[in-house]
């Protein structure tokens, strides 16, 4: 017997029993609820016109984050709160400070992207509630990295992000929301069915293993940032779906034995925040450039790794650091080096009924130098042409360990054994560098596509190794600001 989906929207609990499990949140609000403030610009999570804010209980508190409603399936809202642009008008009918600031700063022209910007800015406004200092430009860029505007050139919207905090404050009652959400939490797995298609939300690892074994053909869904497009763009029928993000054990994030354990349901936002505490200099830029904030809020590191795309941005640095992947399934848990998980294009060492449970990231080690670099046409939200990661351990001048991994250079993210061999046991100097650069041509045969030519990929793979050497050479290393245009003022 199917249970309806319940979520909190516009001051009340919405109960939905009739929607297709892959109906998107955007379709639901526009077509069924007739709230047309939220717009569709691309239906692939790349333009931000559909941005909404989702509220979710985390313990006793409510976490509010922006996501792209165009690629999120409605049942993922179960037990959560949805906020759209229609929610922001103040009880007295006045504009919310975010909206008022956008008007005052001339932040809208055609207005079509505006509701999405307003919702992203609102998520920043909420974050600023208990912060004493105004947001920096980088915080604003982060917040709006998933919102495209074709009219304004962004300057007035950046102004509005400052202005909104100067206006009289608007209150948001988190406690009331927490109470409302408490009332729609579940004690057991939700199994929602419609027209023969089911959508399961297990809450524990045990439930996940069981339903996975029962439905080995079901699609495992996490952040929906890729699978969403299978429906909106490829029009695929996903069959039964198991949504893993509510599994408690997969939400854990802990450090032990020199490793950081990141559960498969931990969002990219939270995962990168945790990793960047240990690798602030090395990973912060990649974090900022990894998709957009709404995508990072929805997507998970586990999903990014499990997806196994040859151009995913996490795998290269995870491999370079020697990370492990933890799998689980009917035959129990097993752990392997991430680099061994990827067999070939879209082929992974995953047995029937198995799923990714966690990723284990080694913490910094003495004398190990690590960097990761991303090349794409645009700084914000772009898929890499090349993503490079380098980790070398030095003993004095001598390279004791070298781990070089690239994305965008082969059918999977993988290491460069010949280039690594050219460095091992050698002094970390320009001669060794040049030889390793040369050896990269033996390690990879990259493709030409719309993101870059084969030539460019190879040349820059070599040149990024050179950048790494500039930054880590033992004599007179260069600061990032001297070798990276985005770090230069």
């Amino acid at each position, binding site marked *: 017997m199917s249970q309806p989906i319940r979520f909190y929207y516009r001051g009340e609990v919405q109960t939905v029993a009739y929607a297709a499990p892959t109906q998107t949140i955007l*379709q639901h609000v526009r077509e069924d609820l*007739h709230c*047309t403030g939220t*717009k*569709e*610009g*691309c239906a*692939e999570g*790349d333009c931000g*016109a559909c941005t909404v804010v989702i509220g979710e209980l985390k313990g006793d508190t409510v976490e509010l984050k922006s996501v792209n409603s165009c690629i999120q399936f409605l049942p993922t809202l179960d037990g959560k709160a949805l906020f*759209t*642009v*229609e929610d922001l008008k103040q009880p007295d009918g006045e*504009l919310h400070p975010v*909206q*008022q600031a956008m*008007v*005052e700063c*001339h932040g*809208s*022209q*055609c*207005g*079509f*992207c*505006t509701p999405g910007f*307003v919702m992203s800015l609102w998520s920043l406004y909420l974050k600023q509630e208990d912060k004493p200092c105004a947001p920096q430009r980088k915080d604003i*860029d982060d917040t709006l990295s998933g*919102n*495209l*505007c*074709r*009219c*304004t*050139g*962004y*300057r*007035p*919207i950046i102004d509005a992000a400052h202005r909104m905090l100067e206006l009289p404050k608007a209150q948001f009652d988190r406690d009331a929301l927490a109470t409302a959400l408490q009332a729609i939490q579940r004690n057991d797995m939700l199994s929602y069915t419609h027209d023969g298609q089911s959508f399961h939300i297990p809450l524990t690892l045990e439930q996940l293993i069981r339903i996975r074994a029962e439905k080995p053909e079901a699609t495992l869904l996490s952040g929906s940032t890729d699978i969403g497009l299978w429906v909106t*763009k490829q*029009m695929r029928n996903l069959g039964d779906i198991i949504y893993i993000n509510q599994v408690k054990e997969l939400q854990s994030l802990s450090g032990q034995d020199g490793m950081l354990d990141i559960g498969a349901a931990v969002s990219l936002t939270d995962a990168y925040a945790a990793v960047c505490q240990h690798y602030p200099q090395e990973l912060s830029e990649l974090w900022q450039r990894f998709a957009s904030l709404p995508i990072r809020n929805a997507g998970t590191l586990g999903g990014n790794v499990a997806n196994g795309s040859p151009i995913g941005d996490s795998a290269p640095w995870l491999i370079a650091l020697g990370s492990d992947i933890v799998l689980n399934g009917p035959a129990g848990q097993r752990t392997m080096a991430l680099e061994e998980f990827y067999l070939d294009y879209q082929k992974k060492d995953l047995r029937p009924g198995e799923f990714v449970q966690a990723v284990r990231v080694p913490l910094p080690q003495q004398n190990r130098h690590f960097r990761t670099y991303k*090349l794409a*046409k*645009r*700084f*914000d939200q772009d*898929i890499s042409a090349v993503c490079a990661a380098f980790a070398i351990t030095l003993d004095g001048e001598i390279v004791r360990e070298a781990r070089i991994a690239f994305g965008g250079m082969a059918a999977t993210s993988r290491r460069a054994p010949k280039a690594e061999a050219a460095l091992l046991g050698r002094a970390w100097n320009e001669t060794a560098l040049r030889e390793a650069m040369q050896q990269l041509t033996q390690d990879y045969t990259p493709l030409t*596509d*719309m993101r*870059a*030519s084969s030539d*460019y990929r190879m040349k*820059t793979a070599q*040149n990024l190794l050179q950048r790494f050497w500039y930054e880590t050479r033992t004599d007179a290393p*260069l600061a990032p600001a*001297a*070798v*990276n*245009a985005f770090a*230069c003022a």
Partner: protein
Amino acid sequence: MNTQSEAFLQQQAATANWTEVGKQRPHESAVLHVLGEATYTDDIPEIQGTLHAALGLSHKAHARVHGMDLKEVKASIGVVAVYTAKDIPGTNDCGPIIHDDPILADGLVQYVGQPLFVVIADTHDNARRAARLAKVDYEELPAILTPQDARKAQSFVLPPMHLARGNCRQALERAPHKVKGELYVGGQEQFYLEGQISYAIPKEDRGMLVYCSTQHPSEMQHVVAHALGLHSHHVVVECRRMGGGFGGKESQSALWASAAAISAALLKRPVKLRADRDDDMMVTGKRHCFYYEYEVGYDDEGRIVAAKVEMVSRAGYSADLSGPVATRAVCHFDNAYYLSDVDIVAMCGKTNTQSNTAFRGFGGPQGAIAIEYVIDEIARNLGKDQLDVRKVNFYGRNDAEGRNVTQYGQKVVDNVIHELVAELETTSAYRQRREEVRAFNAASPVLKKGLAITPVKFGIAFNLTHLNQAGALVHVYVDGSVLVNHGGTEMGQGINTKVAQVVAHELGLDLSQVRVSATDTSKVANTSATAASTGADLNGKAAQDAARQIRDRLTAFAAQTFGVDASTISFADNKVYIDGNVEAFESLVRKAYNARVQLWSDGFYATPGLHWDAANMSGNPFFYFAYGAAVSEVVVDTLTGEWKLLRADALYDAGKSLNPAIDIGQVEGAFIQGMGWLTTEELWWNKAGKLMTHAPSTYKIPGISDCPEHFDVRLFNNRNVSDSIHRSKAVGEPPLLLPFSVFFAIRDAVASVGDYKVNPPLNAPATSEAILNAVEAVQAAQAVGA
């Protein structure tokens, strides 16, 4: 004898300072935008029985279609009907000028993405799913994919154009120096955030109402009427607003409007056709890419003495607006420079790709960037600062100076480029920063900075004279509120705000008293496209004409009623001052109504003094010129080609601005948009002719981080010499040329690798890959030179 009463003094004070134009008013829809309450076409509540359509697209670039098996399409869930070319009741054409644009391909497909059929279903999703199920029997034909190949094959959509002045060949032979080369500048997707959409609703007696996101309602009306085999009076097209247009909804909204209307007419039910983003980008045309070959002669100062250029655009499979785009490219090859002896050939290459169309600038940017590229090279060849070479080539200021007639024979009578550039040179500290950039580069092995200043001169008016007309309708209701309707369309540029300001100004009202309604072909007939930057110029004047007629009637009525001279009556502050009496506007209106005075009026405007001889490419096509300049500073990574805009300063001549806030917004938006065109926005077709960059995941318009930390845009203090609306100047397109400065700053940074002695071969878009290639070419040339 009259004494100056208190009321008279009050009138003096109130009217002397009163103005509505020139104020920084927010966009008329700003509050609706931020609330999510602004209605776009897809937000209109659907009428019961509404169906949804999707297009079935060609998978081949060039092929004969021997048959289509549509059984599975028809059998798909929710499908109500499938229509092909043979079902079209009227003419199967939606071309704006030449009739070579079938709505649905009939036996021949000419690009990947060309619509073959339309499927109508109960939901948007079901229509899209069904559209993929067709089995098409193609016989492939050879395809031409690039403008260079089109030129080689002499494959054109229109005959080549030629403009010559003086004796270019002789001047080239005599020139002390020459520069010869080639350049490729890519196209650009409009990427309006709201995709193409039309919602057609059948009305009684074969009538059809089409809600359409379009810049050209009148043309949509005509195309729909032809497609249905009806007269124009059967069809009404309405557009309240667009979520962006940028030229992409000028002619190319026609396909969507006619396909929706045909379906609605055949089914006698409302049909909505909303393009998915990928379909939109696969089907519709973009900015034309151009390939150029040039040969230019110059003297020791860098002054151009002869300029010869052949340009060929990628027109796509049909003419669309490629002819007028090429004309504008020819008319803007001079940019801000006097070219005495010049020879320009422009060709519209027929290629098996989307039919390219209008995009902000409309060929103007493509014409001007070529001469800027040449000047950049001349300066480097002479070892001079680019700015100095630009200055010696500027048009003369007046007849005494001479050098003030364009290559097409129009005299430049409003030249402010000298003063404007001089001001920017100072405020941006250009010379000092030039030194700083050189010093930085000398000390930096990997990162190199670049700096460039580029000017803009842009002709305002449609090249084609008859398009320079507009109409408006102004209603004053008995309660004193005002409703304005005009032929322009609102796509974000703020035309409604400006027109409302003009009407409010005429009637002495607050802006809040004036409301602009949706553009509607049944209210104002035979309108021109909102294009060529002319929207506010034309429609502002037409609305002013209408408002003045009403004001004149009210004035005459007041003069008669109060027994005073009409010249003593003025309108300001929501009041009418009548020689010592003050009457609320609303109250005078009420009295006038009771006295049976007509309180509404039409208005009309035709831009004076224009003519254009298309055969000889000469005449006075432009009402005036708008000017501007920008300085950009970038840093380039010579290992990867990555780059960042560090600072941009721009100065723009909006004449006496109608609304400085809106104008600054237009300049900034155009700057970033033009920067995208020249840098990150790459259209990439695979070998089979399929566009692979057809969504925001693969096609990268500028994002938030691309807006520079230091971005200083100002308006130049000026007043239009021509009698434009309140002496303002247009602002839509000209600022799109300002980010040339970004492109040439990148080229400058790359040139530093060769100590500024080698001209980097840099094509647009200057993607990181193109930049790295240019860096390596300079390094290779250096190695050969050394």
